């Protein structure tokens, strides 16, 4: 789930919870407030009555009677004035039941004892509790719906605001993480944001990318320098061995030994050359200005390599159906790439096996498929076959595990995608998918 959705969902749910609590508590609040209000009203009325009694005498109410009582038509309020029986002075407000004309009702009653005309009286002013809580339910409903509407409104606002707030994070993810291709561009533009956390995240990512770039750069530099430095001693050794071989005094036995020495040296040379080639490709020291078709490349490779096919009695067929010209490529590197792939198809093939090369053109995608009937690659080895110095356990044939590393570098240099499908004992199919921009026309 997206962060903005999560945030909005969380905020909305918590708001909803608060609303529910509020709405449920509303009747109690209303009761409390209305009882306070009622108490106040009762006190006001008590004051008014006492004032009138003071001004006009208690008889104004009693009208010659022992006691006085009056209530409203629906018995919601009443007032009563009676001689006090108890010597205790009362001044309380309490909720109690009273029977008025056979109806038992709950009242909020203010009782007050006072002296007037030499006698003690109890004054009761009351209001029915049913009147007090009468708005509570509709109020509850109203509050609930009004708050729900408000909630909906805030959800919309929340969504908009979080979307806006999280925008920089989205930009960081898409620009710095998802759409980054290694090696990263030397200069990374910081994402504009006023949120410090995002600034920090973005800054850290840029720093990290710089560090990775630097480490990669160092490795490339090291490979290039080390290979380059190794060339001189190899050169000296080779010249020395060659001169020794020229020496007529050297016996056949020594000559053979020298020959073996030379072969070992050549192996070293080959490795160093391959490493240098990879580092030159990675350092972009090759131009990409050639226009070339794959078919003649394959024909040239066959000329170079046919003796190896003959030796293993492997049949080869090339089937090119599409007249596609590639542009902005390096012909030598593509030659090397296909050479290595076909060479592998021979090297890891079975005697009497076959190799087929064909092309495919599907909606802007031009690809060349190289299929062999070789020993295949175990599935667990597939992810690492393009790594340097990696060799299948199954392969008893030679090789330094650099052929495919070179292929990978060349492919990367031309934005070529390589798909490998393989079944042990049945063969391997490598599909070379050219980038759209490499296909001319």
């Amino acid at each position, binding site marked *: 789930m997206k962060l903005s959705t999560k945030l909005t969902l969380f905020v909305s749910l918590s708001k909803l919870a608060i609303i529910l609590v509020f709405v449920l508590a509303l009747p109690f609040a209303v009761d409390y407030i209305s009882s306070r209000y009622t108490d106040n009203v009762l006190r006001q009325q008590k004051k008014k009555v006492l004032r009138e009694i003071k001004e006009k005498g208690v008889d104004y109410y009693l009208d010659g009677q022992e006691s006085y009582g009056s209530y409203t038509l629906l018995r919601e309020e009443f007032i009563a004035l009676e001689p006090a029986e108890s010597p205790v002075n009362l001044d309380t407000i309490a909720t109690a039941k009273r029977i008025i004309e056979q109806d038992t009702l709950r009242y909020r009653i203010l009782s007050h004892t006072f002296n007037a005309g030499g006698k003690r009286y109890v004054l009761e002013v009351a209001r029915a509790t049913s009147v007090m809580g009468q708005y509570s339910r509709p109020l509850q409903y109203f509050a609930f719906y009004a708050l729900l509407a408000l909630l909906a409104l805030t959800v919309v606002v929340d969504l908009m605001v979080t979307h806006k707030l999280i925008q920089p994070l989205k930009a960081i993810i898409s620009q710095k993480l998802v759409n980054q291709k290694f090696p990263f561009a030397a200069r990374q533009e910081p994402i504009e944001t006023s949120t410090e956390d995002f600034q920090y995240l973005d800054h850290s990512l840029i720093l990290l990318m710089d560090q990775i770039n630097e480490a990669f750069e160092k490795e490339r530099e090291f490979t290039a320098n080390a290979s380059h430095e190794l060339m001189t001693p190899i050169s000296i050794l080779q010249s020395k061995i060659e001169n020794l071989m020229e020496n007529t005094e050297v016996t056949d036995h020594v000559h053979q030994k020298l020959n073996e020495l030379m072969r070992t040296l050549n192996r070293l040379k080959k490795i160093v050359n391959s490493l240098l080639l990879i580092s030159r490709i990675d350092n972009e020291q090759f131009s990409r200005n050639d226009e070339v078709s794959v078919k003649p490349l394959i024909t040239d490779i066959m000329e170079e390599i046919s003796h190896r096919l003959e030796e293993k009695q492997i049949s080869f067929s090339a089937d090119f159906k599409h007249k596609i010209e590639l542009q902005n490529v390096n012909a030598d590197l593509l030659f090397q790439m296909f050479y290595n792939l076909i060479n592998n198809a021979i*090297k890891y093939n079975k005697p009497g096996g076959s190799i087929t090369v064909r092309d495919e053109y599907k909606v802007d995608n031009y690809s060349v498929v190289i299929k062999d009937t070789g020993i295949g690659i175990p599935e667990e080895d597939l992810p690492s076959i393009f790594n340097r110095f990696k060799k299948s356990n199954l392969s008893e044939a030679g090789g330094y595990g650099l052929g495919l590393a070179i292929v990978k570098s060349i492919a990367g240099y031309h934005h070529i995608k390589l798909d490998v499908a393989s079944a042990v004992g049945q063969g391997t199919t490598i599909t070379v998918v050219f980038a759209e921009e490499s296909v001319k026309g």
Partner: protein
Amino acid sequence: MKALLIEDEKTLAYEIEAFLKKAFYICDLAHNARQGFEKLEDTQYDFVLLDLGLPDRDGFVLLEKGKKAHPETAFIIITARGNVDDRVRGLNMGADDYLTKPFSLLELEARMQAISRRKSGINTQLIDLGEFKVDIQKRMVSYGDVDIDLTRKEFDVLSYLLLHKNRVLTRLQLSEHIWGSFADDDFDSNYIDVHIKNLRKKLVAHAGVEWLETVRGVGYRIRK
């Protein structure tokens, strides 16, 4: 033939010098650009073998000035710098060839001979080989009036052996010359043997090829 070798790596320079002397070249040595300039002022050379990475000056400077002063002299660049730009730049500046270290001394000699042939201006240079005649320039082998149809690789093997006649060439040296950087990477291969076998078969149909010798465990030799 006079050659000047400008190479700062002394051990390597001595080896190349020894080889060239054996191949009947008169060879002078310079270990830096300054010495190189001095030698070039004194002597007219046929060949200048020039290392690009010299301690005092870049080899390209020497190439530019040297070529201007001695347009007839063949300049061969020998360098560990293998990148395409340097190669193109060197050849554009008038270098006659460009060899990347490490190279085979035999390859160096072959290149020097090729330059000599080119400069001598002789178009047809027929070399006798037993009862056959070999035209290196036209890449043809004939027996009397009959042209023998050889593949490119077969001719390459034959001509390289012929160029280094009376010398045992290892399979490795042969395959490196023929396939260059695409030389077999599994070294127990017998691809060269296959080519020699085919070559012999084609030639033997016309006349004996006892001059083409197999040296057990090492390689092949043309004895002449």
